[in-house]
């Protein structure tokens, strides 16, 4: 298995946000696209896939009360969500069909009457999304091989390294490590690379697009780190 893009030393992701690589064609076409990633050591005693603890639940409760119908409609005009809508259009996704992460969260809020507590990791990522507008994803660090970046998938590639990894059509934009696509951009994570209940080391990554200040993406990663690292 290759160690990553040429010249990239293989190392565990540190706690500081790190800019990911972009394949040449992606960088030429979408120069302002950025991937930021960082490592997290989970110190919470709870299971990542178990019910979320009281403090996370309370935070979701507060956010539910702040997030109302008027904002759900007007959110598409806010600078950060609007930037993701534009980017979705530019990469061939219709944001009215495949919703941007923040709009999907807003829709769920309206349909379910609130941000209902679920699993710990899921809820921590949701809180970061609602606070900053930046979507964050988590991978199990032990399944990541080298630094993360964005490229187009090649013919015959699969999403992940597991046996049941689904095939990817060529040209799909993916988040990949040194050797394998681990997630479709703004889409699903590869099976076998998602954090499990007992996973203690995570690699978080956020995608910032044109018009989104990098500070917001750092803030989103920091919010997740803080929530997961406190014992």
């Amino acid at each position, binding site marked *: 298995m290759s160690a990553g893009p040429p010249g990239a030393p293989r190392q565990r992701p540190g706690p500081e946000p790190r800019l990911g*690589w972009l*394949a*040449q064609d992606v960088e030429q076409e979408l120069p302002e696209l950025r991937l930021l990633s960082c490592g997290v050591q989970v110190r919470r005693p709870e299971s990542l896939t178990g019910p979320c603890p009281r403090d996370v639940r309370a935070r979701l409760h507060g956010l539910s009360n702040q997030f109302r119908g008027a904002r759900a409609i007007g959110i598409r005009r806010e600078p950060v969500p609007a930037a993701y809508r534009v980017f979705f259009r530019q990469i061939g*996704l219709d944001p009215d069909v495949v919703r941007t992460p923040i709009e999907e969260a807003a829709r769920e809020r309206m349909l379910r009457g609130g941000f209902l507590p679920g699993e710990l990791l899921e809820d921590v990522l949701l809180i970061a999304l609602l606070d900053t507008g930046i979507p964050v994803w988590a991978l199990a660090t032990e399944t990541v091989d080298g630094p993360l970046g964005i490229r187009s998938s090649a*013919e015959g590639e699969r999403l992940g390294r597991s046996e049941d990894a689904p095939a990817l059509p060529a040209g799909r934009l993916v988040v990949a490590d040194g050797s394998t696509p681990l997630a479709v951009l703004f889409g699903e994570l590869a099976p076998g690379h998602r954090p499990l209940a007992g996973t203690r080391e995570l690699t978080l990554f956020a995608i*910032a697009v*044109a018009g989104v200040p990098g*500070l917001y993406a750092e803030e989103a990663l920091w919010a997740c780190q803080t929530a997961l690292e406190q014992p």
Partner: protein
Amino acid sequence: MPDSARAALTGARLAPVSSGAAARRALLESRCANTEETRVTQSDQLILDRGAQTGEAAPARQGGSAGASSAALGGAGDARGERAARRTLRAQVGRLERQLSAIVAERFPYIPASGAEGHAFEAGGEEPSCLGPSLLGLDQLERTRDRLAGRLQELRRLAAERDEHERSAHELLRLMKLEPGRFRDVRLPVSDLGQGGCGVWHVRPRLGLIGMLAGWWQLKLSSGCPLPMGSSPRGGPDSWS
């Protein structure tokens, strides 16, 4: 790992290890770069024009003595021109999307947030979301741009119709206030005036039957929306703990 994937990675740029001030500076610089509005610059247009000229001139050059090198130069120019054209189209798509969002956010719920089934994509072939996230080619970007332009035109028409509807409703309300007797039992929902809530302006007889017989009419505004579950507090996010 497939060769093509490796080839894609050959051109990958690696960010410097973000430790300390250097990484912070890199992130700050990228932040500053991103605050600029994406738009078609004069240089983009020049590249586009040059690309178009190169494209027209290429067949004439092919038989010449310096044919190969000219073709190579022309190819490079074409690629540059196409990239500039894609950048231009992406900027146009961004502008159209922002205009669409503005109309929907200002006029909701009178203008739907998403296109009616089958309407949004009738202008151009394959539904874009079927493609998945990918680097779009010139023709795909053109289709997206045209589709958005069509949708924007449709929404502007709906917005103009809505404006006209609200304007005539305001006019009707003004007349109802001036001469209620001319508009007996006419009901005008406040939603027709572009206002929220469930209120209804209603021309009713004063003192019931007496007013009806005497021709005493007045304009009344009904109270707001009825509570769906009476006056008892409803379960909401506050009830969870």
